[in-house]
């Protein structure tokens, strides 16, 4: 059975297409459209042009999903859309014109999705997972790995930009202010200091953009397929981005759609580097979409989907799940806690074998929208 998940973030819209069977879930296609919704906001309202852009990108990704023979297509959005004032109107128009319902997921669930998708990195020494988003920051201790330990900070890179940066790129004074603000926020969230984490695992599109810029600046090619960032070179990059004439070319050539996010992102990462005593940063290719899909397959998420083959909608609408979702979350958290020992072997297996897919083997089909009966016929589980 093929599934697709489309993620609407503040600076891009991305797609994964996956094939899931009894044994494993394999990502067979990825795509990303660089659309900075920020440019299409009028105050806190997404303009008609912004809605058009969003719809155009979603239609392309729906078409791609159909070409791959996807049955169930999920669209998720984190804070990017949730915070806009005409969120409900946008959601309604998008569904009317694309046939795709949008699932809005909260910060903790986003962090949990990141965690689920990146269990492999728990094998790294003292690893912490970081997703720097436009409207929120998610931080997750990969060793503890339960939902309660996941931190979702109520500010994102765009908020930092608005609050501290007068022009488009930060200057040195603004960088200092951002660093102080971030450390204060980390203190408020009781995030640890010094030598607690040695590996920082970055997930999310902005972090990939940061890596691309870093690799271009430092002229680095990954020999073993692992994307790593070293502190000394990264520090030089941050200095370069604070004043050198070529900084805009560097961003323009690598991630123009992240224009407003790169400056704050690099400053926050540098702050984390120092605060946590991190020795290296690694960049993960797996993030919230992969995690969300796994939760769907495990029955821990039951968002709305579009059945592309039947051209029908299914699942539980957002409004209807507002309260139950809380209960569900609690249940899920409870399950998480109860299932700690149950999950651990999979985690251990992943650690030992260094294989991301192994962690997905726990993705049994019980939560899938429809499942394959023994005789091959499909039965709805909804």
């Amino acid at each position, binding site marked *: 059975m093929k599934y697709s998940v489309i993620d609407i973030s503040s600076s891009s819209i991305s797609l994964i297409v996956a094939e899931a069977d009894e044994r494993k879930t394999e990502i067979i296609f990825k795509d990303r459209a*660089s*659309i*900075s919704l920020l*440019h*299409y906001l009028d105050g806190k309202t997404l303009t008609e*042009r912004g809605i*058009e852009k969003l719809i155009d990108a979603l239609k392309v990704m729906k078409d791609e999903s159909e070409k791959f023979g996807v049955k169930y297509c999920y669209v998720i959005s984190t804070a990017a859309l949730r915070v806009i004032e005409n969120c409900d109107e946008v959601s309604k128009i998008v569904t009317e014109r694309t046939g795709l319902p949008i699932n809005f997921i909260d910060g903790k669930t986003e962090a949990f999705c990141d965690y689920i998708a990146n269990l492999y990195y728990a094998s790294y020494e003292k690893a912490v997972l970081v997703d720097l988003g436009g409207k929120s920051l998610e931080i997750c201790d990969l060793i503890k790995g339960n939902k309660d330990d996941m931190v979702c900070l109520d500010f994102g890179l765009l908020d930092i930009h608005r609050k501290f940066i007068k*022009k*488009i*790129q930060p200057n040195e004074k603004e960088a200092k202010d951002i660093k102080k603000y971030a450390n204060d926020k980390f203190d408020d969230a009781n995030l640890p200091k010094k030598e607690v984490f040695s590996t920082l695992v970055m997930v999310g599109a902005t972090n990939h953009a940061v890596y691309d810029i870093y690799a271009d600046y430092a002229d680095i090619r990954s020999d073993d397929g692992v994307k790593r960032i070293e502190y000394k070179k990264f520090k030089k990059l941050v200095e370069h981005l604070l004043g050198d*004439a*070529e900084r*805009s*070319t560097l*961003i*323009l*050539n690598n991630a*123009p*759609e992240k*224009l407003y996010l790169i400056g704050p992102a690099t400053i926050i990462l540098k702050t984390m580097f120092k605060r946590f005593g991190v020795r290296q940063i690694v960049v993960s290719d797996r993030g919230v979409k992969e995690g969300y899909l796994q939760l769907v397959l495990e029955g821990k998420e039951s968002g709305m989907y579009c059945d592309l083959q039947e051209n029908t909608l299914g699942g539980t609408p957002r409004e209807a799940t507002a309260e139950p979702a809380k209960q569900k979350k609690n249940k899920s958290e409870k399950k998480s806690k109860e299932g700690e020992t149950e999950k651990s072997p999979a985690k251990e297996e992943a650690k030992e074998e260094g294989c991301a897919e192994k962690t997905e083997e726990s993705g049994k089909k019980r939560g899938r929208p429809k499942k394959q009966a023994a005789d091959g016929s499909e039965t709805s589980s909804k």
Partner: protein
Amino acid sequence: MKFGILTSGGDCSGLNAVIRAICLYIEQNVKNAEIVGIPDGYGGLIRGESFPLKQEDFSDILDRGGTILRTSRQPFKMMTVAENGSSRLQRMCENYRRMGLDCLFTLGGAGTHKTAALLSMEGCNVVGLPKTIDNDIYGTDVTFGFQTAVEVATEAIDRIRTTAASHGRTMLIEIMGNKAGWLTLHAGIAAGADMILIPEIPFSVDRVCDFVAAQRGAGKAYTIIAVAEGAVLASEVKFKKSERVFVRTERGESTVTQHLAEVLQERTGYETRSSVLGYLQRGGTPCAFDRLLSSRLGGYAAQLAASGKFGVTAAVAGNRITFNALTEIAGKYKLVAPDGDIVRFAKSIGIGFGV
């Protein structure tokens, strides 16, 4: 508010119509506005030159070809190279501030937009306008200057056709378009070309020869082939542009059209001639479509600027005038899709693409 306008890159029809519309909108709708022209494109901004644009400068230029502001090419890759202690980008930003500009309109093609994005990233308020006869700016259905160039190229092919028919020749008409084949494709279809060769669909000389021979064998007395200047042989696809030029120079040919004309004559035995339209396609008065489009785009861009919307470029999407973020389109090109509607249509009426 103080507005600056510059035109950059190769000229085309409609530039003056855009300048006029920007000025008229500002004159009508923005109180205490000042408008200055920046000469020679980014070159003028690098040097810090400007001159006031008054009513008499822009009121009578709607149908005039070229640009009253003059233009020049400033390669993007040179923008951040330090020269005498500062880069061109730094000098442009300094001059933008020194001139006291509140907004800069940049009229140009893909390269101009990339530099405009750079200026925007460095804190200048920029609004772009999509100018090019190539129609290859990402995110807009059409650019101003394109339709006039299509008209010119179509008429040229029409005229060449009478010679081709009279002499029973195969005629190759080389049309502008290095990366994108929109102009060749549109003019080729509009002028009834038998074959269209564009950069997006690498062609085989064998297929072209077979096509011409088959047509003649079926009784056609002459053949018209529209060739984009950037058309590539399938065998040369892997080469870089510089390598392609080297290979052609080694063969004693300057363009792919010349190469094809020689091979076609030799292999098919039919008299073959080539004609390069060149700068004819850029100059002259804009057609009515371009005058209207340029006016609408210019007025809309001025409206965006007056409302404080910067870092964007005006665009056409589905017959509506709208905008795209500069950073979203910078460095991207809109190319002909080899399996797109218009190519499929052309194939369905028997037009060959050399594949």
